[in-house]
């Protein structure tokens, strides 16, 4: 089992008391599974993904990733986990504006301290695979939304993560572009990557093995 969530809660302290975003989440995801998390805005999908991606801490409960309790890890080890194991795709792409397509994709490898020659090979491969070789020297602002998301996906996959987390990956894309991305996920899934995506779209959710519904922070 790759992911095990036990009684996970997430709340924010506000003037009136606690505002819960996630409540009593118990969830297990196996290695190689493709899971969609569905729910309306504010249901807690993104927060759940952030916790899974070690980007945020739960307020309570336990999160075991590959058998390790995440909450006890230091900043350095969390960085290591993200580097080595997790790929993240965002609805808003989140590319670094000052870097070209090539450099954006290369960034995770730099933090993994991959050697220069190897890095070049890996980035070239992925540019090829996503057919964006011609765009490698462009900056994010020079790309369409779909193209940016492709780069975002390429960046998430460059390190061949065991766990791919995608937060509304097609939210800003045309249906055709969305279709392409989903096709890609399917391929990855077939190759053994564990994928968890948060989505509004039933059509997209259907690409997954399992759909988890989230409503006001509860799994329904």
């Amino acid at each position, binding site marked *: 089992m790759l992911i095990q969530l036990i009684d996970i809660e997430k709340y924010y302290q506000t003037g009136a008391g606690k505002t819960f975003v996630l409540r009593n989440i118990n969830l297990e995801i196996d290695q190689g599974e493709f899971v969609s998390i569905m729910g309306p805005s504010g249901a807690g999908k993104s927060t759940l993904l952030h916790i899974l991606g070690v980007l945020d801490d739960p307020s309570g409960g336990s999160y075991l990733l590959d058998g390790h309790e995440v909450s006890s890890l230091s900043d350095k080890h969390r960085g290591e986990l993200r580097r080595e194991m997790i790929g*993240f795709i965002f609805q808003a792409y989140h590319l670094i504006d000052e870097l070209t397509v090539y450099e954006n994709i290369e960034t995770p490898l730099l933090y993994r301290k991959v050697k220069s020659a190897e890095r070049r090979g890996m980035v070239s491969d992925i540019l090829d695979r996503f057919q964006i070789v011609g765009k490698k020297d462009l900056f994010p602002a020079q790309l369409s939304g779909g193209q940016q998301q492709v780069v975002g996906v390429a960046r998430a996959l460059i390190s061949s993560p065991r766990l791919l987390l995608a937060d509304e990956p097609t939210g800003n894309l045309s249906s055709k572009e969305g279709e392409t991305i989903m096709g890609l996920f399917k391929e990855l899934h077939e190759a053994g990557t564990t994928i968890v995506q948060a989505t509004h779209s039933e059509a997209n959710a259907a690409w997954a093995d399992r759909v988890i519904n989230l409503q006001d922070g509860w799994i329904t």
Partner: protein
Amino acid sequence: MLKHYLISTLRRLGRAKGFTAINIIGMSVGLTGSVLALLLVRYELSFDKYHERLDRIHLVVNRSVSASGKVDHQPWLPLPLGPELLATSTEIVRSARLTLGEVIVHGGSGSFEEDILFGEPYLFEMLSFAVIAGDPVAALAQPDGLVMTRQSAMKHFGTVDLIGQPVSLTTEAGRREFRVLGVVENPPAQSTLQFQMVLPLQAWLTYTTRALNWNASNTHILVETAGPVGKFDLTDTFLAILLKNRSDRAPVTDQGEIPTGRRYWNLSLLPFVEAHLSPQYASGLLQPVDPQNLMILAGFAAILLIIAIFNFMLLALGRLQSRFKEVGVRRVVGANGADLTAMFMGEVLLTALFALGISFLILELTLPSFNKLLGRDLALTTATDLGFWASLLLLVGILVLAAGLYPARKLASLQPVQALHGIDPSNPEKRSIQLGVILQISLTIIILVAALVINKQMKFIQEQPLGFNESQVVLYKIATEMDELPLWSQRLKEVLSRDSGVQSVAKVSYSVNRGWNRLGWRDNAGKPWRALVKDVDEDYLKTMEIALLSGRDLAAQDGEEAMLVNEAFVEAFGLDEPIGYVLDGFAGDADRDPTIIGVFSDFHFFSLRSEVAPMILWKNPAEYYQYLLARIAADDVSGTLQRLGDSWKRAAPGIPLNYNFLDEDIQALYIQEQKLQAVTRGAAILALTLSAMGLLGMATIEISRRTKEIGIRKVLGASVPEIMGLLSRRMVVSSLLANIIAWPVAWIVMQKWLGSFAYRIELGPGILLGAASLALLVSLLTLGTLAMRAATANPVDSLRYE
């Protein structure tokens, strides 16, 4: 990774050109100031370091205490003290007496006046002046020996190959021949002792009459101790010597009591290495700098650098939000806190290195004029000077850490999700920014106060009535042997007086600040007194336009029995009826009892750093007048000077024409302050500009943050002045709060500086308020233009901005 950071940093800097320019310009100005201060301080601290036995060389100095407890620092000592020290103390192994003098060199290319040293042989053994030819030690042991520097040898003879060469010199003792027995390299610029030629002490006229005189202090004494500085306590030696030779000046009496009611001497050793930084021992020979002024300069540099650091830090904090997404993304792909800190610090380092490059460029361009201003030869030292580069590295390190560490830590501590959503959970930087702005403005106010105080004090000094009219007075030097002075001073006075452009001519033994005597007498109760004495003739008061308050002026027929005293004299000695008062046994001569015939108004003989001292004017009994003071008519000054020069050359072809204006002489007393004034003015302008640039950046950030708010307020009916007020309020509050920090600091520092002037301005609230208003005005002007633009913008645009 380095390349990746470098590329992204360069692109980011290029994208935010305005902020980058503010940061780089600010840092380069701060660094330029700091490097200049570093160069200057290192320069001043490395004086005399080239002497091999420096740790054993000392200057004997006298911290004399007057009957009223006033301390007077003197490097001038009686001539017999030198040999006496050598004879009395086993710890002193060498001694050399030395003093300044002037000679006329009759060389191959004519007669020139030259400043020289009279010194003893050990001088060249104790100090390390590179010898080119001959033996300077042996030279000074010969009565007709002469040591020349390369420069003077080349100037007078065009060669350094001069050993054995006879040279005709006119000293005070007359014209005679000396032989060049040593040629040395020119003393380095960082040498306390500067000279062109050195003659044996015996060739000094004063030496021939005062060699055994314990009552006159007219030599400097350098000694070499058997071991390094600090190992010796020569208190007992000095005491024994004084008890034996000048018991009236011994710091304790025979019975071991501390003297009361009389002046006593505290002789001590000043390590020669400290002489350059001991302004209290300034003399013609020693021209030390005031460490306080160096500290002020270093302080200015530090403040400029700190303002640049604040600018950088505040702008970085203000724009932190623009980095959130990037930080979040980097976190997501695996960066940890240390990676992000390193990235941000790298950016700061890169900015600092750009700034350093620019500051080197600025230094290359400005060093010559800075050197001219300070009278130094500072240079960007070569790569071999490790100390300089190490200090520079340290400086850049401090700059980078101080400017970058806080924002870097802020960025690195962001949680990935917060960063991605642009949320700063603690949001403390608003308070940090406010505090930073306050500190930055307060530093600017401190520099402004310093600049205003220094400026006002200098103006005060320049406008302070000196008690005489220094303008249109020309000072002529009569460079001839002593015995001929009575003849030539009278003859040249007559020559100058005959010119229609000359209103009055007076003979004086010294110019205003160039020399004096301190002579004593006994009062009715037999108590000894001393006062400054100037030798002048009967036309002195008239030429200098000094007011005679009572009695009569000196007259042609008066001799040494008549004297004039100043108001300070009358007050200091409590004379109710000064006219007719007799000074018994004046100048150590029991038969000489001159009478006060007149009282003149106080005039400033020294700089305004010291108070007007009791002073006597009388005629030199031997008529040794070395100078003529000529008051000339204001019209056609150059024509008059030309005619006077011609007449001089006709009347005295053997005496070089050497003159300068008295007011220039007076200004030269304040040369250090004038330099400081110029530097302060520049520093204040730079500080104000840097501050304004920083505030401009901050205001840009603030206004762009509040664009939506401005739009909403305008839609709700706020007027332009109300919006302006809203935007300016925080800046005004910061500027006002800054004074709470700045005023006490500036007041304490500048009060201390003013303390070194006996005559000084009051550091009142006016200056503090002036500096505060100036800082506020600049802040408001900076903010105002931006605020105005934001306030008058179409609210629809403002809202669309979101």
